């Protein structure tokens, strides 16, 4: 088993507050890990540390290049869904064919949205598109921050399927969540209060 993510006694701070103290964890290929903790315990911050978007931590984080879906969806409201996804594919180095884009959206049952400007999507539709992006990026580690937000039951099930499939193919997932997620095998709890 190769570890796609190994965290060794990591301490994360926000200003002078210590959010996470001495956390160690590991996510192996094939593992879908839930990151759990109360509101404000530092889940989002930890995911950003791993992605390289938040630098205030000590300790060691070994990881591969990951795909990250944060609270913000990263979709330009003025571009259509297709344009957004195509651009992301190009950005990551491989321009997706139109059919690949449609396929990825189809996996989230959102293929009708293809030509809609992202500004005109509902919250759940936007989330689906953001998740469809994962399928175009071909990164083995997925970092997901509350991926089920705004998704309906059917959407949640689809995401569960995607996660299971990604892990089955040797990928790994670390997902911060409050809801019970389909498709995950393990949980890591971050201790913490609301503050």
């Amino acid at each position, binding site marked *: 088993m190769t570890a796609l993510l190994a965290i060794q006694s990591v301490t994360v701070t926000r200003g002078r507050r210590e959010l996470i103290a001495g956390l160690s964890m590991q996510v192996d290929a094939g593992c879908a890990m839930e990151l759990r903790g109360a509101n404000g315990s530092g889940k989002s911050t930890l995911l950003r540390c791993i*992605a390289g978007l938040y630098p205030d931590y000590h300790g060691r984080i070994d990881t591969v290049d990951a795909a990250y879906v944060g609270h913000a969806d990263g979709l330009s409201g*003025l*571009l259509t869904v297709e*344009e957004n996804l195509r651009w*992301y594919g190009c950005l*990551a180095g491989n321009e997706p064919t139109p059919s690949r884009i449609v396929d990825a959206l189809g996996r989230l049952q959102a293929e009708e949205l293809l030509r809609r400007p992202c500004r005109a999507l509902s919250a759940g539709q936007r989330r689906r598109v953001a998740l469809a992006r994962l399928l175009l990026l071909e990164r083995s580690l997925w970092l997901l921050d509350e991926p089920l937000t705004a998704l309906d039951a059917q959407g949640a099930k689809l995401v569960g399927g995607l996660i299971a499939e990604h892990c089955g193919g040797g990928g790994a997932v670390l997902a911060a969540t409050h809801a019970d997620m389909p498709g995950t095998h393990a949980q890591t709890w971050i201790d913490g209060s609301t503050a």
Partner: protein
Amino acid sequence: MGMFRHQVVREWRLLLRARADALNPIIFLVLCVTLFAIALDGNPEALRRHAAGVFWVLVLLTNLLSLDSMFRRDFEDGTLEQLLLLSEVPFLPIVGKMLVQWLAAGALVVLVSPLLGTILQMRPEALVPLALALLAGTPAVSMLGAVGAALLVGVRRGGALLGLLTLPFYIPVLIFGTAAVNGLADGGGGMAQIYWLAAMSVLAVTLAPFAVWAALKISVENG
């Protein structure tokens, strides 16, 4: 290179999609020029004498405005953090963005400068030097300004701070630019200043993308 092309296409689309956005800088410049023409009426002679300076100041202000919102939307909707994470060739997408900003607030200005110069009562023989100086100088304006914009994107403030930050860099451009136009129009020297402007632009174009990338990283980590 495919990536670069795509970045340019995306930026260009974004620009056109927010339809007037592409024309925003130009519209703004035209408005400013009109206001000045009205405010300074009654004395075309004086206006003429100062037109080059006035024009350059207005170009700088126009660029400040356009630069200020350059990264903002991408920052707010989370595109910027994705860009930093996903970009295969680091600086390339940024260069695409900067190029498009320059096209809208630099190249287009060069194109309409003869018209605007005429409104500002510039002599016909000053119009070519004006376009030339703008062509040589606006890349530096765009590139330097982009660094400031990248540093300030998370800071949620208006353009004033950006102005404060970039002003020291803009003053040489302003001085050389004005001198070049006036010098060339008077038949005196002026090419030296054009060369200086061009040199500044070349320097800025080569170095700014790195600085912008670093600045964006700082901004996103801060956000």
